């Protein structure tokens, strides 16, 4: 009786109310911490995407200068009505000179002003000869006429036009001097200098000039690697999983394989790179820098993911399916391959796509096997030197020129778009074909 009354007195006391308030405050604080931490993580995600996207949008554009170029037969050194082959053989030096002369005329630089001319030269890209040659080859009939051509601007001009470099810097710290900047401004005002879509980003290979560099080699290299990973990791992974799940006897060896697969899934990717270097390149003498080696290494890396996903998918198919097949006279092999495997296919494909997405974003093992070379030509087979998309990003991130920062972000956007598509496909596959038994 006294106990109850003292307790009642205590709960009505100021001390108890204070304690309750304190405990509720602690509750609110704890809850706030949780919210705050999620907000911090989301903030990081937002900053990451903002940095990449705001920087990368610039990378999809490049500065061009519109100049009327007189393509006289005389200055090109060909006959009127020359064949595309003859036009192809025109020296790059000649074409560069024609383009530069056209720019001098446009800027109103007199013939004798040598220093001004060499300053004006720095406005145009080193790739203008290729550009003119392409125009001539596409339409040989334009020889003899003057055409307005959007010539690629030099990589030094680009960041100024995009406003990435402060133009109020002292002149000796800028890539463009005052004269060149004045020209850029005048051309821009005349509507002769503008940002255009950078189609070269998708068609060019490596280059030291940001305006001429592209991801074509990397895209094809990554494509070869992906094809190899699908071709190697899917059959081997599914085979291994089918054996372990359906046929393997319970013994030491099977346990060993299982432990092994789980550990292999957690081995750092760079260790797979060392494996590739030691086994595929130094021992089997496969070519360095080639997608074939990259594909093999990443296949081995993806294998545990595929095996684990396949085993989960096979295990999710109810045993009644198998028993029904066995009951009507199918062999165990037939029951597995005709009934269980097709039903497990959506799960297997989901696992494969997730593994592929990881392989597509992997960089370190590819660096180890030498896929970091500057490759100019688009590879025609998996044995030719190539790079891969993430490696290209790594290489560009290390380039000192300002223009490469935007290109790197653009390449990252391309990579993220691929990854997002793959992951979305996996999610859709899972949602669409998920079966509840």
């Amino acid at each position, binding site marked *: 009786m006294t106990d109850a009354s003292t307790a009642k007195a205590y709960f009505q006391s100021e001390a108890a109310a204070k304690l309750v308030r304190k*405990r509720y405050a*602690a*509750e609110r*604080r*704890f*809850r706030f*911490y*949780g919210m*705050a*931490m*999620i907000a*911090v*993580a*989301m903030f*990081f*995600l937002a*900053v*990451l995407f903002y940095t*990449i996207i705001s920087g990368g949008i610039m990378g999809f554009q490049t500065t061009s200068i519109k100049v009327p170029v007189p393509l006289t037969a005389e200055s090109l050194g060909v006959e009127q009505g020359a064949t595309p082959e003859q036009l192809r053989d025109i020296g790059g030096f000649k074409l560069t000179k024609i383009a530069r002369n056209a720019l001098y005329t446009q800027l109103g630089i007199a013939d004798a002003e040598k220093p001004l001319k060499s300053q004006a030269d720095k406005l145009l890209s080193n790739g203008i000869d290729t550009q003119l040659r392409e125009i001539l080859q596409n339409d040989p009939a334009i020889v003899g006429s003057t055409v307005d051509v959007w010539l690629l601007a030099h990589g030094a001009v680009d960041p100024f036009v995009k406003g990435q470099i402060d133009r109020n810097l002292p002149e000796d710290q800028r890539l463009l001097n005052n004269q060149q900047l004045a020209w850029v401004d005048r051309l821009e005002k005349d509507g002769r200098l503008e940002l255009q879509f950078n189609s070269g980003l998708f068609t060019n290979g490596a280059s030291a000039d940001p305006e001429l560099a592209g991801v074509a080699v990397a895209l094809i290299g990554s494509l070869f690697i992906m094809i190899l990973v699908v071709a190697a990791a899917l059959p*081997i*992974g*599914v*085979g*291994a999983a089918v*054996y372990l799940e359906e046929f393997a006897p319970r013994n030491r060896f099977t346990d060993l*394989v299982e432990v*092994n*697969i*789980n*550990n*292999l899934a*957690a*081995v*750092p*990717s*760079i260790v*797979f790179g*060392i*494996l590739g270097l*030691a*086994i595929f390149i130094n*021992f089997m003498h496969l070519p360095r820098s080639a997608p074939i080696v990259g594909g093999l290494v990443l296949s*081995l890396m993806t*294998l545990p993911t595929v095996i684990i996903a396949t085993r989960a998918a096979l295990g999710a198919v109810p045993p009644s399916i198998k028993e029904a097949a066995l009951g009507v006279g199918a062999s165990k*092999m037939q029951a597995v391959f005709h009934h269980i495997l097709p039903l497990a296919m959506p799960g297997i494909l989901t696992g494969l796509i997730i593994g592929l997405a990881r392989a597509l*974003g*992997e*960089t*370190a093992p590819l*660096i*180890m096997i*030498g896929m970091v070379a500057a490759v100019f030509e688009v590879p025609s087979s998996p044995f030719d030197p190539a790079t891969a998309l*993430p490696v290209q*990003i*790594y290489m560009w*991130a290390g380039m000192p020129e300002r223009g490469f920062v935007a290109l790197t972000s653009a390449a*990252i956007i391309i*990579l993220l778009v691929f*990854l997002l598509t793959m*992951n979305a496909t996996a999610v859709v596959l899972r949602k669409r074909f998920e079966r509840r038994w």
Partner: protein
Amino acid sequence: MSLSILVFLTAGLTFAAYMSGVFRVRAVSGGNLSTLHSRPTYYGAYVALIVGLAALCVMILWLVGENILIRGIIVDGLPEAVRNGPPAEMELALGQIANAAKAGDAFGAEPYVSQLAATYNAVSASSRLYMTIAMFVAAAGGFAVAYSQVKPETRARNRVETVIKAVLFLCSCVAVLTTLGIVLSMLFESVHFFSMVNPADFFFGLTWDPRFSAAGSGGEAGQFGLIPVLWGTIFITLLSMLVAVPIGLMSAIYLAEYAGPRFRATAKPLLEILAGIPTVVYGFFALVTVGPFLRDFGGTIGLDIDARSALTAGIVMGIMIIPFVSSLSDDVINAVPQSLRDGSAALGATKSETIRKVVLPAALPGIVGSIILAVSRAVGETMIVVMAAGVAANLTANPFEAVTTVTVKIVSQLTGDHEFTSPQTLVAFALGMTLFVITLGLNIYALHIVRKYREQYD
């Protein structure tokens, strides 16, 4: 004949064998398929398997033998001086010959190179011809044997299934072979390395300075010291855990205990996006955003922070690790039985008291396991540290300075222009071995903890 054409031809032959097996068994059965032991396709598959395997076995054996044979012939043809010289030089000469044979031109190398290149081409051409013949003979022999066995009483399905089962078994061995390959390749080169550098100097050395140890001279004491490099890895991992564990754990708690289903359905996938972003993107983020930001921020409050610092790498790696901690912890917290929470609430505890005093202690083994897995992930992470942590091996506890890690050194030692047999290159394998052992140990320990305490409430 090129290899790819041969493979295609073999595939064509195999298909022809399949068809002939099917037709043969139909003819033998006289249209009454129920007299057959197996369905006709199995007889076709049986013939095809025998033909294909015979041809492939011959091809693989021949290709392995061919390399050894041709190498022997070329080595015999090398001038005395080269053959008896150092092995590295002989390998170089062999490489030159192989290149010259491929290009059809020795490009002004020694005269014996172009001579031997011609021999190389002649021998390999004739070897290819014999191989093709041998393959066809084997395929024909296999076909004759298998075709004669296409009879109703032959148990074709059982035989085919035995072969398929063997193939499946081989598939599951690939994973074991991969581990074996990893261990052996690194062990072999590490032993090679330790024959040049004293293991004690490697594991306990306090100086990392491989540059001044010339090839073959045997590194002097302390030059390949692991400690500063390993310290960099541990330091950055610690910093990243300081970021990832509070954020990841509190996020997991909030998502599991407080969040409504709709908030959970949005926030969880968003957090997991962080895990799907390639590490090279994080590296770039650290390089162009976080590093310069920290440097400028440090400048304004009077701290000297390098753009490439342990702090930069640690923070960015921590962001990357958040989803590993949060998703695993989330699963573990959800696995704590509801009755524990109800019991605690019945005693009058607030929700946060329940979480702190009941749920978290119950989930602790799983949470520790997930943190250890995250640590193992951070230790093996390469691209962020390569791009953001720097290359100088500093033994420092100052997070504002550049440090280097085991993975950075593996990359820089193996992509440099060193002779492959020099300790400068081989040290990468010893580092790789160290990394492999550390991550393996962490993984096994994490699984052990999770497994040991998991069954408590079942």
